[in-house]
């Protein structure tokens, strides 16, 4: 009841159900007039138990399940998982397979960034941009359907390579599609850099400075817009990225406008990469034989999804089922920065600031149960959990507590 509230502050719930959010998530905003004085994020409305479900499935079943972690970056999750399993199994995939994975990955990035541009337009009441970008997105969706048979869950990966080969006619089609996409992307860059109302609406909104981005562990375009040149494709190249010539797009604005510039810039880089992949596509088989049972061992795989660094951890125990699968979607790393970005902003900026990290909440939701080494289950506060983690590592001779002071990655250039 607003009318009975005595304080000047009004609390507005954005979510779990709200038109600005495409998935359930709760942001509790405390307002003074139209200004935000406090904001809180609460996750956990969409937990699907995928990690646990993977443990009860064979590797190949788990792979298809993992692909369904995210509706947009399905290939990212699938590839990150497959890479981890291949590392445990000691598989070396053919070069052609890694090129095809990269090709699908970059097409997926184009499709994801175009989608984001439309959503961003919609959040600031600019539906025409939404309609334009989503129309153009059809081009890349059709290309993906042509290459893989599906528009969303491509199912191209398998352990030891990819399930489908790409023929010359398809590559020709992709090149044609990329020409259209590049032309349209250039148009959106003109819109983003010339349209004064758009620039005014996005500039100085959702500020996340370089140091804060590093401190809060932001990843992907959110971090790169703050000048943190952190990109797994360059830092820790996987698939065919080591062979490709591309730039890591960064911006100095450190606001929503910067994030827009980074994403449209990455669209151009992706087009460039797709051309290189098709030009240098090596010949050969697309798959090697993979064992049904994977030997015991663990692996950690990083993948630069359109939204940022996607991390998968897989531990095998020699059976045909993984013993443990851990997924950390990029939104998990970015969502903590949202509260910082919203601070002292306007209510009108909440939707665009949340949208600017390109959130994917269903992918993010995780459940952590605490099983004490002394036995039994209980509740731990965040501080206790952190302290327990530090001590556990210290007992094994690893100390990360002074990490940020001794090692700073991604200095702006």
């Amino acid at each position, binding site marked *: *009841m*607003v*009318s009975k509230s005595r304080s000047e502050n*009004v*609390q*507005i719930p954005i979510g779990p159900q*709200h*038109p*600005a959010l495409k998935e359930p998530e709760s942001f509790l905003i405390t307002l003074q007039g*139209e200004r935000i004085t406090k904001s809180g994020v609460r996750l956990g409305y969409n937990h699907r138990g995928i990690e646990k479900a993977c443990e009860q499935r064979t590797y190949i079943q788990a792979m298809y399940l993992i692909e369904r972690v995210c509706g947009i970056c399905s290939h990212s999750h699938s590839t990150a998982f497959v890479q981890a399993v291949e590392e445990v199994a000691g598989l070396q995939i053919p070069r052609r397979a890694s090129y095809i994975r990269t090709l699908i990955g970059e097409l997926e990035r184009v499709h994801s960034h175009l989608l984001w541009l439309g959503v961003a*337009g*919609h*959040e*600031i*009441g*600019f*539906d*025409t*941009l939404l*309609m*334009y970008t989503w*129309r153009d997105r059809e081009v890349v969706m059709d290309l993906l359907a042509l290459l893989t048979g599906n528009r969303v869950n491509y199912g191209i990966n398998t352990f030891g390579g990819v399930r489908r080969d790409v023929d010359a006619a398809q590559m020709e089609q992709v090149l044609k599609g990329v020409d259209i996409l590049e032309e349209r992307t250039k148009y959106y*860059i003109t819109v983003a*850099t*010339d349209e*004064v*109302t*758009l*620039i*005014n*609406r996005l*500039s100085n909104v959702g500020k996340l400075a370089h140091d804060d981005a590093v401190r809060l562990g932001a990843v992907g375009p959110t971090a790169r817009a703050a*000048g943190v*040149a952190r*990109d797994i494709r*360059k*830092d820790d190249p996987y698939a065919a990225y080591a062979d490709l010539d591309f*730039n*890591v*797009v*960064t*911006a*100095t604005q450190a606001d929503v406008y910067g994030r827009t*510039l980074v994403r*449209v*810039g990455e669209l151009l880089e992706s087009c460039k990469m797709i051309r290189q992949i098709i030009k240098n596509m090596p010949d050969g088989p697309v798959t090697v034989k993979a064992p049904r049972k994977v030997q015991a061992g663990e692996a950690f795989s990083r993948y630069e999804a359109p939204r940022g660094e996607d991390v998968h951890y897989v531990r095998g125990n020699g059976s045909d089922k993984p013993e443990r699968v851990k997924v950390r979607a990029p939104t998990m790393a970015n969502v903590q920065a949202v509260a910082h970005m919203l601070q002292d902003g*306007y*209510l*009108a*900026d*909440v*939707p*665009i600031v949340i949208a600017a990290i390109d959130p994917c909440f269903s992918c993010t939701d995780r459940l952590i149960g605490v099983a004490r080494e002394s036995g039994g289950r209980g509740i731990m506060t965040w501080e206790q959990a952190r302290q327990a983690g530090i001590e556990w590592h210290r007992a094994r001779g690893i100390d990360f507590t002074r990490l940020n002071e001794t090692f700073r990655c991604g200095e*702006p*250039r």
Partner: protein
Amino acid sequence: MNRIVFDNPLLLAAANGPLATLLLIVGLIIVMLTVVSYLILFERWIAAQIQDRVGPNRAGPFGLLQPVADIVKLFIKEDFTPSHVDRKLYWLGPIWVIAPAIIGMAVLPIGGTVVVAGHAFRLQVASIDVAALFLLMTGSMGVYGLVVGGWASDTKYSVLGALRSASQLISYEVPAGLVVVSIVLVAGSLRLETIAAHQAGLWWGWLPHWLIFTQPLAFLIFIVCILAECNRLPFDLPEAEQELIGGFHTEYSSMKFGLFFLAEFTNAVVASLLTAVLFLGGFGFWGLAGDQPAGVQTQWYFGLARVAVSFGKAGLIILLMMQIRWTLPRFRFDQLAKLAWQVLVPASLLLVFANGIVLWLHAPPWAYLLGNVAVALLVAVGAWLLGGRVTGRQRTLVLAERSHA
């Protein structure tokens, strides 16, 4: 019966009898509501054209039955009243919004006078002396409905939406009022027929004496103001879907919601008809609709032609409003207030002075144009000097290469 005042032949201010007035009111409401419901279809069609889509084409040929389907849908939806609302005010809200919008139509001169079967018949419900003020009043009254509806809903989103519309109205009523003042200065009357009649006649035999040509800045300010007062994008903050769900109408359903929706478009029609009267010479159309003071025609078909001209001009303004809606992102609240108080209010205030000076000097009409241009320049220079500069164009995209050692 023929009580025609011939001091200005264009006015032919005949008073209608009670029966004729009632007929006119019913006719006008029916025409207006039809126009408004088709306007919604038209808007969707325009949006589809701008956004490279197909648009509504399922209901009837070319989707022409879409308004009928929409209204039927609204009527058969459950009319749900949440338990926490203030019931009386909750009911009053939509009525309070739609009533002033419809009342506003009464004073608009849309067709002059016709003579049917020997009886003079004025195509205007009420010809009052202060019609311009009356329309400003109905515009403000409608916002009370939004505030009342939003407050009665007792939801944070609704209250915030209502508060936003109140402050938006305060911000934009001022420049709109000042622009009307400067037009009234020039035309010498608050009566809309007189303002329209003032614009009759042609320069060089082809350019009408419409005030848009001598007062372009006033026209521009007025268009921006009516966009804000009709809650249309880029100024639709009170119902910003992405922030406030539906704003003041979040808690309304069925035809109560329909009334809010209808009122918004009715307001848009009334505002554009007013703009047509103030700046585009009302029903003046190069004398083709029997509208020149020298030879005003009272045949019924000329009357219909004049109504068509009025609505046609209003249609052009609505088209402009729709184009703006689909090409610009929504303003943020601080940007909206800044635009009103730092640009529009000073500009319209200066405009009143400029027009006053030209009037005082008995200067020819082109002096008004000069005054407008001078005010526009002054405001632009002032905004630049006071540092109200926009972020500006950023042409360079930072593409940082990261060397990988």
